[in-house]
């Protein structure tokens, strides 16, 4: 916490100085873009941000923060936000929209966004990239023919004995529980929260670790601390590249996205809208999976020919893979029922 706050403060200072310097040439258009840092932000800088800046002739200042929500809230509350566009879990954009923290989008100015499937956008946001919460397992423990392939398998401790880990968070975990209980991936919403928690009680004694960070989930599998885990696809494939004996299935994966949204009264609102449209341009979007294991949010990216067929097969949002998965409803999670389910989680963990 301390480290991240100070790094952020430092970043803020350096960006502030940079902004002051770059403001000198008259009318140079710029925005401040905020993402989650790390390898992910580096990849999108090369794939999307730099090409967009060049094409639009604007300067994109960057900031990064692992969890932007508290900062978004305090920035907008202060009346003078310094950020323009944020790349955050879609739920934050929706909740932010409801609470007046995020600008309502005019899709007539966002042709690229308007062309995307309706499920991928909201009045406040446009999906930016996809990842998936998948069932991953150790190949040392389970051979290819006898590997778990569904959440029902994950719950089946007799047929698939082994140690398990789930995320210490209700999002995607409740979905997995319901699918384990026989709910079809496209019939999940509105979630039957009671049923999901009941199913989770069932597996709880067999969960060794409830992980809190993506890095931790991968580490647990790699170290042999657990044999089976719900993890983000990118984390697992990173392990595979390092030669770890692990694998995952997209079957019944929970397809999740981060979205772009614009802070209320953003300092560079017009430029931010132009950028947002550019960021979901099919070609820029197709560039992203060339640098990191996340899928483009704009399905047209798959028609550009930029992504090779064997690469397409690995991506969570590729049509073939998306069909096997459940698409997360952020609208449900940011509804009162969703928030109540989130609050119920701590009590469930303590029992």
């Amino acid at each position, binding site marked *: *916490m301390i480290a991240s706050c100070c790094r952020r403060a430092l970043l803020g200072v350096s960006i502030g100085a940079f902004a002051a310097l770059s403001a000198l040439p008259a009318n140079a258009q710029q925005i401040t873009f905020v993402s989650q840092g790390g390898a992910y932000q580096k990849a999108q800088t090369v794939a999307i941000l730099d090409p967009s800046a060049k094409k639009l002739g604007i300067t994109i200042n960057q900031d990064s923060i692992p*969890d932007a929500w508290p900062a978004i*809230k305090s920035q907008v509350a202060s009346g003078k936000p310094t950020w323009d566009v944020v790349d955050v879990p879609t739920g934050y954009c929706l909740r932010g929209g409801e609470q007046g923290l995020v600008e309502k989008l005019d899709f007539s100015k966002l042709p690229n966004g308007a062309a995307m499937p309706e499920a991928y956008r909201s009045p406040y946001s446009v999906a930016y990239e996809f990842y998936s919460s998948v069932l991953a397992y150790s190949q040392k423990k389970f051979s290819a023919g006898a590997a778990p392939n569904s959440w029902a398998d994950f719950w089946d401790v007799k047929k698939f004995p082994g*140690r398990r880990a789930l995320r210490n968070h209700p999002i995607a975990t409740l979905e997995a529980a319901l699918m384990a209980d026989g709910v079809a991936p496209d019939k999940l919403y509105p979630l039957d929260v009671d049923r999901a928690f009941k199913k989770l009680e069932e597996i709880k004694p067999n969960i060794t*670790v409830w992980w809190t960070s993506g890095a*931790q989930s991968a580490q647990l599998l790699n170290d*042999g601390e657990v044999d089976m885990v719900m993890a983000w696809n990118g984390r697992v494939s990173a392990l595979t590249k390092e030669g770890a004996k692990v694998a995952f299935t997209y079957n019944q994966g929970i397809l999740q996205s981060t979205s772009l949204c614009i802070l209320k009264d953003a300092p560079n609102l017009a430029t931010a809208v132009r950028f947002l449209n550019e960021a979901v341009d099919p070609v820029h979007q197709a560039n992203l999976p060339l640098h990191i294991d996340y899928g483009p949010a704009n399905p047209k990216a798959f028609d550009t020919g930029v992504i090779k067929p064997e690469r397409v097969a690995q991506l969570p949002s590729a049509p073939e893979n998306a069909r096997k998965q459940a698409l997360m409803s952020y609208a449900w999670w940011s509804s009162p029922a969703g928030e109540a389910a989130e609050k119920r989680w*701590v009590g469930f963990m*303590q029992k």
Partner: protein
Amino acid sequence: MSSPVQDLSVLHQRREQRLMLVLALPALLVILLLVVLPVGWLAWQSVYHNGFTLENYRRIWSEDIYWRSFALTFQISLLVTLFALLLGYPIAYAASIAPRRWAIVILALVVLPFWTSVLVRAYAWLALLQRTGVINQLLRQFGVIDEPLPLVHNTFGTVVATLHILLPFMVLPLYATMQQIPRDLMQAGASLGAGPMLTFWRIFLPLSLPGVLAGSTLVFVLALGFYITPELLGGGRTIMISMLVSRNVELYDQWGAASAIGVVLLVAVGAIFFAVSRFIPLDRVLGQK
């Protein structure tokens, strides 16, 4: 009634007092800025949100997740304090009776962990304690166990790592107290026919008690606020108060609720101190002369 000389001395005393007050002003200002104001702001946050409200406290009172976390936090802190005392006392004792050169070595070893980050140490414990970790592997190799012991991702792992981080806070006050115990007293005891055990029990141990209390208080209070170690080594089940604070800010974006937890913790610790001070003079513990 009073003589002119006495009047003069009273005047002199008053002037001195005023001078002292002026000299203390900068220090008081710092305390006001760094201690009183933030805590006051915290308390204010917890009761004010678009008007005065006790909602945040009502929630702590009525939802049992808070009770459970408070209970667990105090339980873990007590365990850590107890083990820190059991481990720290012999270390401090050894340092206090060892020749100066050895004492420095012992204390350096105690303080050394301060130079590495808490986060790194938590991960190091993970590497040591997990299923495929060093300890389980060794035990397996020597045939002590067949199945790896669950040493981490539970309360045990949390206590071990927290203990490691807080041990210096026990050893240093203990050492400081022990060093001040005059060795003549033990010699006097011995000259009256008491063996080493008896002199320890009757003379050394009672005289080292202020150090025991100082160290225990320090460790206990610090353990109450621990965040990283239960988060990383608790396996998700060890939900301490600090984690509820962070959840309230991150998940529910309620600074008021988080502040209220802080205030309750502060009051609880204050109450414990008050209770303890009725039996033990705390000024001797906190400000040794």
